[in-house]
């Protein structure tokens, strides 16, 4: 029975892993490339306004005549920065809170859990908007911080439940009886054992953060104009979507391919990270 269970996700796992690697790798490569080279200067007016795709301008030009493909490429960099930093901030706060709640006394745990539930009841975007509104300058940094804080509640709740389940396992008791301290148990057993589930959730959060940043930018609360965030490109394309649909389609495809890629990658990595899912040697 184990052989069947182990072999099925394996073949599926490697396919998702490779596709995920390909998509994410492409975005990372493009993002790195923009640091040293872009087809055109992103702010230079290089052609007619709203020109359709051509050999000179692969995705046409925007309403000011700037090369659109260049802006999409720079958008990759911004999306990756936003996704990674927001998940890092949310993960750090969320995992810490979640583990503390799992160890806390009944009363404190209930209070924390209730607070988290209330926070989660608000849409992530709304919390992020509140945080951005509270700090009166709209910048990429503020948007990232806001998204990180908004995501941390979801991470904290998941961590709390996962950690509680692991803490009930005999190997935790065994470790404690042999003299492992509480902190030692967290780093040696709890975090590694909740990591496979947590990492998949981080991938979802990454996608959420990228989309939420696009939404914030779309609403004018994210990265201010010189930053070619996909959300802002979508917003700018709004008025011209019938005359130049490429303005909405291109950033949309970029956004979707990155989010799907990260999810596939996380799925594939989880299958590798869990020895019971691997076929035995």
């Amino acid at each position, binding site marked *: 029975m184990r052989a069947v269970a182990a072999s099925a996700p394996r073949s599926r796992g490697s396919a998702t892993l490779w596709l995920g690697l390909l998509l994410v790798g492409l975005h990372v490569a493009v993002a790195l490339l923009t640091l040293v080279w872009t087809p055109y200067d992103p702010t230079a007016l290089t052609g007619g306004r709203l020109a359709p795709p051509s050999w000179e301008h692969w995705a046409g030009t925007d309403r000011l005549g700037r090369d659109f493909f260049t802006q999409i490429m720079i958008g990759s960099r911004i999306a990756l920065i936003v996704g990674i930093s927001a998940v890092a901030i949310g993960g750090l706060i969320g995992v810490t809170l979640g583990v503390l709640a799992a160890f806390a006394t009944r009363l404190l745990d209930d209070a924390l859990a209730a607070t988290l539930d209330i926070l989660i009841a608000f849409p992530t975007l709304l919390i992020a908007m509140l945080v951005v509104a509270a700090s009166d300058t709209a910048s990429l940094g503020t948007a990232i911080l806001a998204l990180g804080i908004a995501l941390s509640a979801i991470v904290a709740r998941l961590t709390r439940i996962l950690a509680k389940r692991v803490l009930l396992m005999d190997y935790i008791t065994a470790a404690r009886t*042999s*003299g492992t301290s509480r902190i030692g148990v967290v780093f*040696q057993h709890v975090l590694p054992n909740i990591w496979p589930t947590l990492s998949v959730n981080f991938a979802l959060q990454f996608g959420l953060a990228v989309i939420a940043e696009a939404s914030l930018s779309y609403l004018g609360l994210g990265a201010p104009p010189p930053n070619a965030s996909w959300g802002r490109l979508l917003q700018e394309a709004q008025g011209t979507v019938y005359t130049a649909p490429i303005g909405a389609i291109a950033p949309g495809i970029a956004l979707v391919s990155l989010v799907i890629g990260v999810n596939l990658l996380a799925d594939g990595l989880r299958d590798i990270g869990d*020895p019971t899912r691997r076929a035995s040697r």
Partner: protein
Amino acid sequence: MNLLSIDRLNLSVDGKPLVSELSFSIAAGERLGLIGESGSGKSLTAMAATGLLPRAIKATGSVTLGGQLVIGAPDRMLDGLRGTVAAFVFQEPLTALDPLLRVAQQVAEPLRRRARRDGRDLDGAALGREVLTLLEQVALPQPERIARSYPHEISGGQRQRVAIAMALACRPQLLIADEPTTALDVTTQAEILKLLDTLVRERSMALLFISHDLPVVAEIVERVVVMQRGVAVEAGPVREVFGTPRNDYTRALVAAAKAFDDALEGRA
């Protein structure tokens, strides 16, 4: 001096008593059996000995482990006693091992900690050698292969040997074995029992053996405490308690074991 002495221990959850007025002690090198049906409070008593009761359970009375009062002591103080004074082997060998760590890593952890407590560093090749030595001492076949395996890749009996190796790695003065053979098949049971017996004698460790299985306990310990519904109903040397049981419950236990033996030998 007693390694573990429990004096009038009471355990309760929400006012409902789980263990009442339990007293016994174990001296260095002594082997004691704690017998009773499931739910009689044996395992809780063992956890109380190291101060690792679930938070919901209230403990009163006195528990002294290695000269240190356990009930009411801060966790940090008890961490130092755990492993060094007493180490555990549990019932369920699958869940007692972390599924994500190779056997070598699991055994290395208590070894390294014990070395650190003794004030020396144990790392790299030296640590690897000690892990293999321990795996050999618990009579695991092909220790190199087992060391590289994950828990799900080895058998139940082998896992229990690994769990025993982890307890031995702590070099405790007292080994607490909580139904260590219950989850195993009969032939493996006998092997594990023999192994525990040998190891405890060789290292002149004290042993607290918890079980519901009378013949198993009789084989390995010198004294027994019989528990029923959280109360010690009878205590004394094995021969005395099982030879001339005074309490009804003990008599029933002995009779059941005898009936089983008779049935096996076709005398019934």
